[in-house]
């Protein structure tokens, strides 16, 4: 727990998500009825999911960080059973990081096209890699289209 | 060796049009002169005169139809301009004010623009139906002009089932809309076409029922006859005897013409352009024109049925005669003698100078020749005004025409006003309104009118 600048922070593991969030929501002393934000974080070594909730019992925010999600298979239970509005927040976390929320009925990509393969906000996402896999790789730009083949062109990394 | 140096290769586009026309004109003049000199032309002219005299009815009809077709285009242009300008002023903005004085040429240029757009047929569309739909919609509106009485004696065809013909032909527009919606191979168009068909068909019924009262009062379906019944005084107009009918008719007419608040067929915040989504260029122009011609048509019908058509609310000719402005048309020009010649030679320059000199004197940025031009234009305006006054006082056709158009344009402006002010009604609310409120109201109107007629007849013995 850390209290700084009007936010209290707690860290939990993936297994505790359902119970902790349900307690925070339903318990009459807590009454954390408002979900302010749900997002994913890539710390470089692990993944995290961060919830911010608010209760009318206190003017402070509560930050719930689900820590230590493995990078190669980040999974945790979804909280759409408590807040239906978290569905799109979880879709975004899946789209940007690849975090799978079990129990979300609609876990598909929301910003990127459905056949996109990378997860953009990960720290190991390299745009040139991704661009090199796209069908547009190697396309000569219009200003070079009239020059002979063999003239220097812009090229994408493929190695 | 380039051929760019020949004079006819250096013509601009305007030159390429004008030069062949000039050549054609020269050839035709020559042919005319030769023809008149050698004799065949007078013979042909006599033959034509005899044919026309023998078939006057058909010639008159053809002339009327041509006049109507030619009338619809400037009418549409004027109404489009009115709409743009009036709605702009209601929106607290200026509207078109660059093209022509006060933006009056704007709609003509819209017409040219629409002609210049790419005309394509979408893939998968049913081409013959797609192509014919705008024509059907346009014709449905235009054909109804045939029975409108513009002035005493100025009716296209004075049928004794004129009103029935009017509504029959107007309903053809629904067929056109359905054709457009279905053949476009587009879900939006389909939705739009179905909505349009449903709306127009449901509002046809209150529309026709609301005027049954008028028909009961006059006993004739002929529009000319209905207008003649309302001659006499201002209080003879049917709006005073059929106020409910007028109201129902006006509302149903707004729905017929797809005008706001009933314009969900072209609701561009919902289904883009409705049935006309896939149309571009002149085809779309046809739909557009048809709508504005329809607005004019419905306003004209309101005026004819309820506001006395070409009857004047007050006797303008009489007032003009009282203040001494009407000139006796039987005055022979020869009686004026030399005075006529002097008048024609002296009056125009004197009036032009009289109008130009104050402008030149009081505005320092106007050169003298510009002031003369302005004076000339003002003189033209005055002369036309005087001519119009004389024509109004002496020919009842002119007077009737002026009143007809004035009243019709009042209603056109009311339609435009409604468009600028009101939001749109939803489709189920629209249909509910037609079937649950307008239709019973129209039936009640008929019942009351019929009862009143019987009662009045009994009272009068």
């Amino acid at each position, binding site marked *: 727990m850390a209290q700084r600048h009007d936010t209290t922070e707690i860290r939990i593991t993936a297994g505790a998500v359902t119970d902790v969030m349900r307690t925070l929501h339903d318990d009459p002393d807590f009454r954390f009825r408002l979900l302010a934000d749900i997002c994913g974080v890539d710390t470089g070594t692990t993944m995290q999911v961060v919830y911010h909730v608010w209760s009318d019992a206190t003017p402070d925010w509560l930050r719930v960080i689900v820590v230590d999600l493995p990078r190669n298979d980040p999974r945790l239970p979804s909280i759409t059973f408590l807040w239906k509005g978290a569905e799109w927040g979880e879709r975004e976390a899946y789209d940007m990081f690849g975090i799978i929320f079990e129990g979300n009925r609609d876990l598909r990509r929301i910003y990127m096209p459905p056949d996109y393969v990378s997860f953009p906000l990960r720290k190991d996402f390299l745009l040139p890699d991704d661009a090199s896999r796209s069908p547009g790789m190697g396309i000569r730009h219009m200003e070079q289209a009239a020059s002979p083949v063999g003239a*220097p062109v812009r090229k994408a990394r493929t190695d | 060796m380039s051929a760019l140096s020949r004079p006819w290769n250096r013509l601009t586009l305007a030159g390429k049009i004008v030069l062949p026309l000039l050549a054609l004109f020269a050839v035709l003049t020559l042919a005319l002169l030769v023809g008149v000199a050698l004799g065949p032309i007078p013979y042909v002219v006599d033959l034509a005169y005899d044919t026309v005299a023998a078939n006057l009815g058909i010639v008159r009809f053809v002339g009327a139809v041509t006049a109507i077709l030619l009338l619809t285009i400037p009418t549409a242009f004027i109404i489009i301009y009115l709409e743009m300008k009036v709605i702009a002023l209601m929106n607290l903005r200026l509207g078109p004010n660059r093209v022509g004085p006060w933006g009056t040429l704007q709609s003509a240029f819209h017409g040219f623009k629409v002609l210049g757009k790419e005309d394509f047929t979408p893939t998968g569309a049913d081409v013959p139906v797609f192509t014919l739909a705008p024509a059907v919609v346009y014709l449905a509106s235009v054909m109804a002009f045939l029975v409108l009485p513009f002035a005493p004696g100025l009716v296209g065809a004075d049928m004794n089932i004129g009103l029935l013909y009017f509504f029959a032909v107007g309903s053809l527009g629904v067929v056109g809309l359905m054709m457009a919606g279905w053949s476009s191979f587009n879900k939006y168009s389909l939705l739009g076409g179905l909505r349009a068909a449903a709306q127009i068909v449901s509002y046809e019924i209150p529309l026709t029922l609301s005027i049954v009262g008028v028909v009961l009062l006059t006993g004739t379906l002929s529009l000319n006859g209905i207008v003649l019944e309302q001659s006499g005084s201002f209080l003879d107009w049917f709006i005073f005897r059929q106020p409910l009918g007028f109201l129902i008719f006006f509302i149903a007419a707004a729905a017929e013409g797809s005008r706001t608040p009933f314009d969900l067929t072209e609701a561009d915040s919902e289904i883009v352009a409705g049935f006309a989504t896939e149309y571009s260029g002149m085809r779309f122009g046809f739909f557009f024109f048809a709508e504005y011609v329809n607005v004019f048509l419905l306003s004209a019908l309101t005026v004819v049925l309820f506001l006395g058509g070409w009857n004047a609310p007050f006797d303008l000719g009489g007032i003009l005669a009282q203040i001494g402005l009407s000139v006796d048309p039987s005055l022979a020009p020869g009686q004026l003698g030399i005075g006529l010649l002097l008048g024609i030679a002296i009056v125009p320059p004197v009036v032009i100078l009289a109008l130009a000199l104050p402008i030149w004197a009081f505005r320092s940025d106007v050169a003298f020749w510009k002031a003369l031009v302005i004076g000339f234009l003002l003189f033209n305006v005055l002369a036309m005004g005087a001519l119009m006054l004389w024509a109004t006082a002496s020919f009842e056709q002119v007077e009737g025409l002026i009143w007809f158009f004035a009243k019709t344009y009042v209603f056109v402006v009311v339609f435009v006003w409604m468009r600028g002010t009101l939001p749109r009604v939803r489709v189920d609310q629209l249909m509910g309104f037609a079937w649950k409120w307008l239709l019973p109201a129209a039936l009640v109107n008929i019942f009351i009118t019929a009862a009143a007629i019987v009662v009045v007849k009994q009272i009068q013995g």
Partner: protein
Amino acid sequence: MTTAPKTQVRSLDDPLLMVDTPATIYDAVPPYPPQTEREAEFYALRGGEMLINLGPQHPSTHGVLRVVLKIDGERVVDLDPVLGYLHRGVEKICENSDWHMVVSHCDPLEYIASMFSELVPVMAAEKLLDVKVPRRADYIRVLACELNRISSHALFIGWLALDLGGLTPILYGFIERDEIVEMLAALTGQKLLFNYMRIGGVNGDLNHEFLSRLGDWMSHAAARIEDSQTLINENEIFVKRTRGLGVIDRETALRMCLSGPPLRATGIPYDVRRAHPYSVYPELEFEIPTREEGDSYARYLLHLDEIKQSIHIIDQVLHKMPDGPIAAKLPRLLRPRPGRAFAAIESPRGQYAVYAMSDGSDQPFRLRIHDPSYFNLQTVGLLTPGHLVADTMAIMASLDPIMGGVDK
């Protein structure tokens, strides 16, 4: 120079790039099998149902939003918004930029009310840097934000009426917006994306032209707004189309993570300015308008009430404005302490929040932007089924989404 490139260069006429595009790509159904339960349920059509695409190019989807409607005749059975047409990767861009540059990147997120979208990351950075913002800067921030709130609400009212077919109210809304935007242009130099907030304060002080324009505007603002609303407030057609439309009750509103005017229209008096006060709002007197019905008409009236409250706030701010510096002095290269900060404000659309993580370097480690339009838009899928196609627009317009924020 004729060095042969290592990669094979394809020209634009390469046959490999010629993809056969059948007409079915214009269908609303995606060309791959459904990936989730909801997708399967949505794209399974029963008899008589039709899938129709609303957008992405559409006159009234408030930006580039594609909504797939499943309709049965005129009635909407279900709807599926498809986002991403305006996705610009702002969060990733911010991770690669300086803390100061974040302001320009976050500007266009809520482009109608960009003071708010600039203010939040700045507030998060100030929390991480423990910067004390001078009082005058705080007051100027509140002034600018409330002006922007009024102009955004004026535009909302116009859009709602425009989506329902009235051509005139949007131009009345633009009169207000025009004056306010000219005012803010005198203050910041920009009319739409102001780039005004700085970490530690604001960019420029109030100048004479701004104050004179503000004075002129304030003298007739409230009366003119009241006046221009008489056109649609009691209009039978407008009321019939919005009353009872898209009713949300309190429990659903909280479960759907709604915020802002749609939440307050259901009766829950949650306003970040009072629930979690920031800046100088604790010193200002204003009420939180709420309405009970939760339908589109209530949301519309609530926006009008909020405009009045904002004018009241601006009045107080002008009276209480202290003297002093307008920005704290900060180094050009900022290295905040490693840590996390969450800052939230009340934007015209709802609760706009930023969760900033810093690792001690001069670039943000993670800048998560929580935009209210994104979460509010989910409610459209809940409210529209059962209504007509025409009501989709009314409901969407009444929730006031801005696609810049939805798509980030």
